């Protein structure tokens, strides 16, 4: 009897929403359509249009933007085309910076996440809370504060000189180191939080079992813990790497804007003298495709391993 009641109830529910599936999904479709597909499509279309002098586009098909990315025609644009290395160099520099920042985040973030996940009871949420507090402050403000900390006569240098670590102030501001520090500091919680979520689900009896079988701590870490929490590590790395790749606040404020990064190169196409919207759109599309290819490759690899 009870069973029948439940079934009846279920039927009623099913009946109420019968055929409404598509419209119930509408908010999701609208979200994806308006905020994801539409802007990206616009960029894609713009990247194939003709540039208008000083910003804007002319609605004529053109491959000039991609041509500019690939071929170097010299200062005056009429040398025989050579391979253009400038933009590849800018991409490489950004990838390197973002990679180093990700590595730093992982080195600090993993032990931090491990520490938090292994606390008992309430103190876990307090630690997590402490991690997120700085992120209530706007990124721009935090980056500027970092600038104050590491400038030539700033507190960081004064502290190191007072304890006798260095004799003269270190040149930290306007260097690559400053950019990496800024990126690391900006995105650290994106590394800690996913790893924390993974470690929290980790079954610690696995570590005990390994120890029972005479595994050293290093081997346990490498063969048992890291593979188990790997999804968290990878999620963290992606969350740090991808925004670092397009970052332009840290390179601008901490690095002195001396060299283009992908983010500032794109920004310059829209807000700078260059005013080359199709090229800015093309660089964005190339960056987007690169990230997508890497992520798809990774997803394929994962699903092949799983099966």
């Amino acid at each position: 009897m009870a069973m029948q009641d439940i079934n009846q109830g279920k039927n009623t529910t099913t009946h109420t929403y019968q055929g409404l599936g598509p419209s119930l999904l509408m908010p999701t479709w609208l979200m994806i359509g308006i905020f994801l597909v539409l802007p990206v499509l616009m960029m894609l279309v713009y990247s194939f249009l003709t540039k208008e002098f000083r910003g804007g586009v002319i609605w004529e098909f053109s491959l000039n933007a991609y041509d500019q990315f690939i071929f170097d025609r010299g200062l005056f644009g009429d040398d025989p085309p050579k391979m253009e290395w400038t933009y590849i160099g800018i991409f490489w520099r950004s990838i390197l910076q973002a990679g180093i920042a990700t590595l730093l985040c992982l080195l600090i973030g993993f032990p931090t996440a491990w520490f938090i996940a292994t606390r008992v009871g309430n103190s876990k949420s307090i630690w997590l809370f402490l991690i997120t507090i700085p992120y209530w402050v706007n990124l721009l403000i935090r980056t500027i504060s970092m600038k104050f900390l590491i400038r030539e006569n700033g507190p960081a240098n004064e502290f190191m000189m007072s304890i006798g670590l260095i004799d003269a102030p270190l040149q930290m501001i306007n260097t690559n180191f400053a950019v990496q520090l800024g990126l690391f500091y900006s995105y650290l919680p994106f590394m800690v939080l996913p790893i924390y979520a993974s470690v929290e689900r980790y079954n610690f009896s696995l570590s005990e079992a390994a120890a029972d079988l005479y595994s050293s701590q290093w081997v346990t870490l490498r063969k048992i813990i890291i593979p188990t929490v790997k999804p968290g590590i990878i999620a963290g790395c992606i969350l740090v790497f991808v925004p670092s790749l397009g970052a332009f606040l840290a390179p601008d404020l901490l690095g002195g804007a001396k060299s283009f990064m992908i983010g500032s190169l794109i920004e310059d196409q829209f807000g700078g003298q260059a005013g080359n919207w199709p090229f800015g759109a093309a660089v964005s599309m190339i960056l987007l495709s690169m990230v997508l290819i890497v992520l798809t490759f990774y997803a394929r690899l994962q699903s092949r391993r799983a099966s």
Partner: protein
Amino acid sequence: MKFSTKIATAFFTLLVFAMPAHSAGKLSIYHWFEYIPQELLDKFAAEHDVEVTMDTFDSNEAMLAVLKAGKMGSYDVAVPGDYMVEIMNKDGMLDTFESSELSNFDNMMPEWVDVGFDPGRKSSIPYQWGSTAFSVNPAVYTGDINTWSLMFDPPAELQGKINVLDSQGDILAMAAIYLGIPQCSSDRSELKALNDLLQSAKVHWASFASDSAKDKLVSGDVAASMVWNGVAARARQEGAPVTYAYPKEGYVVWMDNVVLLKDAPNRENAIKFMNFLLDPINAAAVTNFAQYTAGVKGVGPLLSEQVKNSPELNPPALPVGTFVEACTEEVQKVYDTIWLNLKK
């Protein structure tokens, strides 16, 4: 489907309510950062019973990009620099007015009425003008500072301690002045010389920054920086031990102008605002704040002592400054490549 119609109705209702409503009692300004005192905006709002809103930009090009990207029709007035007025006018982004609409029209200094970028002042009024050169800490470099070689071929004391403006137009114009070649020259050997000069100068530059140039001088991060004269004056007053240079090769002058934008939602208030700024009392208030020079008659007696005697606002008779020119598309393309080479 009934249900989805409801959702759609709800959605579009939301959209409609989210749109800002423009009433007659409003004025929307697109202005440079830190360039007008808030009290002056409040004064205008009180005098004319108008609700004033203002957004800011940090370069002429950034402003142009925002307006071109669909913001036309949402601002009433903007404040572009000299060459940008010409560009916007050619692109049909400016509305015109009759001089009779502005009762204070004749307050303009005569030399600023028939300007090359807006002959006869059909769409713009002068806001402030000034110069662009550089400031140096004379304790770090004790020699003669009035030459561009301090920026482009710096002495050992200044190497690695120089900030430059993050602005293609300014840097290329200054480099051309230093080399003694005409701006926007399409001569290949001259363009190559520009490229080479910037390449060799860059290794001595610590950073590219426009809006934090003052902060860098005050904090002592750099010993010299390219700056606008008003920023140089404010940096000095905030404790930076620097002197503003008037390079013997010449320097850049510019004039910012309040323009009436096409499709201004509150044209009438925009005209009132322009007229308001042509009143010497209000023009003096801007000058006392921003420390540039007004293009309005009768401002002199209203200036503060500090501004009147400021060395940054009282250039020597010689050399004279030159306006940055807007290059042709062909030359601009080479300039873009030079800029890319500089920052790659």
